[in-house]
């Protein structure tokens, strides 16, 4: 692991994004606009907006970073630049950390915009600190980056990689407690939701929603999401092979 190569990789990824202002605009504006949409969906039921709005602040960063990373790394694999990089003195960890850093920064901006709009413009009523919301959103984004990196190894084209989103992300959204409390699910599904990382992201958001101080459960949720992100990042590193079979 080499800090200079990690930072230079992160800078390169951000430079690439810099040439694509439309993607940046979509990444930053879409979550905000969806929150505004949701706000008016719950026009007559503001309490409903609080619960779902907070959960969505945890889900958005994970979904968008999953998409962005999976496509970006798939491109890296198919364009030959990955092969070139791996024939150079670049560690796999440098490459992965570079991606995580660049998209993590992007996620901070995205989550700040969404959280800011939700809390100050849409009067999302949270008991805890918005900083804690931001923290968990950042870890979610990291998890999305890690998952995207990992699945890109199993896709041969952009078509396939986009199909991984319903496979990897949708079940987590259905089971994370957004639609029904997790303890009211059929026991097998409840057990399944206990091992899916997004459940802990949404639980963490809910903790901040209801408690003024960071609770023990909140720290547990935080640790689970961060642990999952690191684990999947390591798995993603294992999918980068210097030698083609």
């Amino acid at each position, binding site marked *: 692991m080499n800090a*200079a*190569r990690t930072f*230079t*990789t992160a*800078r*390169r990824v951000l*430079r*690439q994004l810099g*040439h*694509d202002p439309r993607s940046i605009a979509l990444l930053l504006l879409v979550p905000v606009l969806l929150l505004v949409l949701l706000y008016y969906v719950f026009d007559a039921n503001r309490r409903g907006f609080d619960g779902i709005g907070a959960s969505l602040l945890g889900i958005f960063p994970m979904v968008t970073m999953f998409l962005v990373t999976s496509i970006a790394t798939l491109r890296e694999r198919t*364009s*030959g*630049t990955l*092969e*070139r*990089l*791996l*024939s*150079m*003195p*670049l560690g796999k960890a440098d490459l992965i950390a570079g991606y995580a850093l660049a998209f993590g920064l992007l996620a901070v901006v995205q989550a700040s915009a969404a959280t800011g709009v939700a809390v100050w413009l849409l009067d999302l009523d949270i008991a805890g600190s918005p900083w804690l919301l931001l923290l968990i959103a950042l870890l979610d984004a990291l998890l999305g980056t890690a998952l995207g990196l990992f699945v890109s190894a199993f896709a041969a084209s952009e078509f396939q990689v986009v199909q991984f989103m319903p496979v990897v992300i949708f079940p987590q959204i259905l089971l994370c407690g957004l639609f029904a409390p997790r303890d009211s699910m059929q026991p097998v599904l409840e057990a399944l939701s206990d091992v899916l990382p997004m459940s802990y992201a949404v639980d963490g958001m809910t903790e901040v929603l209801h408690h003024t101080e960071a609770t023990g459960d909140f720290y547990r949720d935080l640790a689970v999401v961060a642990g999952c992100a690191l684990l999947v990042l390591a798995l993603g590193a294992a999918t980068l*092979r*210097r*030698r*083609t*079979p």
Partner: protein
Amino acid sequence: MNKPRRPPGQGSPAPPQRPQAHPAAPAAGRPAVPAVSARDLTVVRGSRTVLDGLTFDVAPATVTGLLGPSGSGKSTLIRAIVGTQAKVTGTLDVLGGPAGSAPLRSRLGYVTQAPSVYADLSARQNLDYFAAVLGIPRRDRDRAVAQALDDVDLASHADDLAGNLSGGQRSRVSLAVALLGAPELLVLDEPTVGLDPVLRRDLWDLFHRLAAERGTTLLISSHVMDEADRCEHLLLVREGTLLASDSPHALRTRTGSDTIEDAFLNLVESTGSPSRERHRGGTP
């Protein structure tokens, strides 16, 4: 530019060539170690043997052509040399160390067949990134990037997005990346495909300049036989086997052919099925 030529009509095809001292080779005092040395090199992909028992040497500070039809295993051989190919058996030493070992990664430049650069970065930004990955210090980076752009004659397009360049320009950006950090061995997979003749000539001039002035060893693959005469030494491959390892002149003399293309055909038919050989009446 005076290209060094080997004496004509030497040796039989298969045995490994002894590396010869080269006028432009650096460190003239010690015996020249081959830049690439393969002994019984075999690569299996899936159930197919892509390379079958190749034995050859590439002399340092020379331009060696790796010629063969498409699908003959050229790219696999190149990947084996740069260390990105799995399931390589036999012996393969590059710059004195086993192929693919970590210390080699900053000593060789590699250009894949398809230009491997970031389409959404400018030519300069591409080079800047790869220069940083290669560990070129920040204060030298701008100069190294400018030099590489100049070498491939792209200085006027330095700030265009690689994605907006023509195919030939993009492959020159890819080549420029490989020139960064003055690698001792440059391995180029079909670098001149689809380029205009003037540019092709300029690139071959550049290759010979690199060998003569910087002592770089170049291994250049091509499926275009008429590029053979631009090389000092040739490796002819077909269906994963090495047909010949010789200088263009020696190859033509030995096979009694006017062109490398004919030499290739003669070699195929003399090493191929015996019935064909009889049909053609044999070769010298």
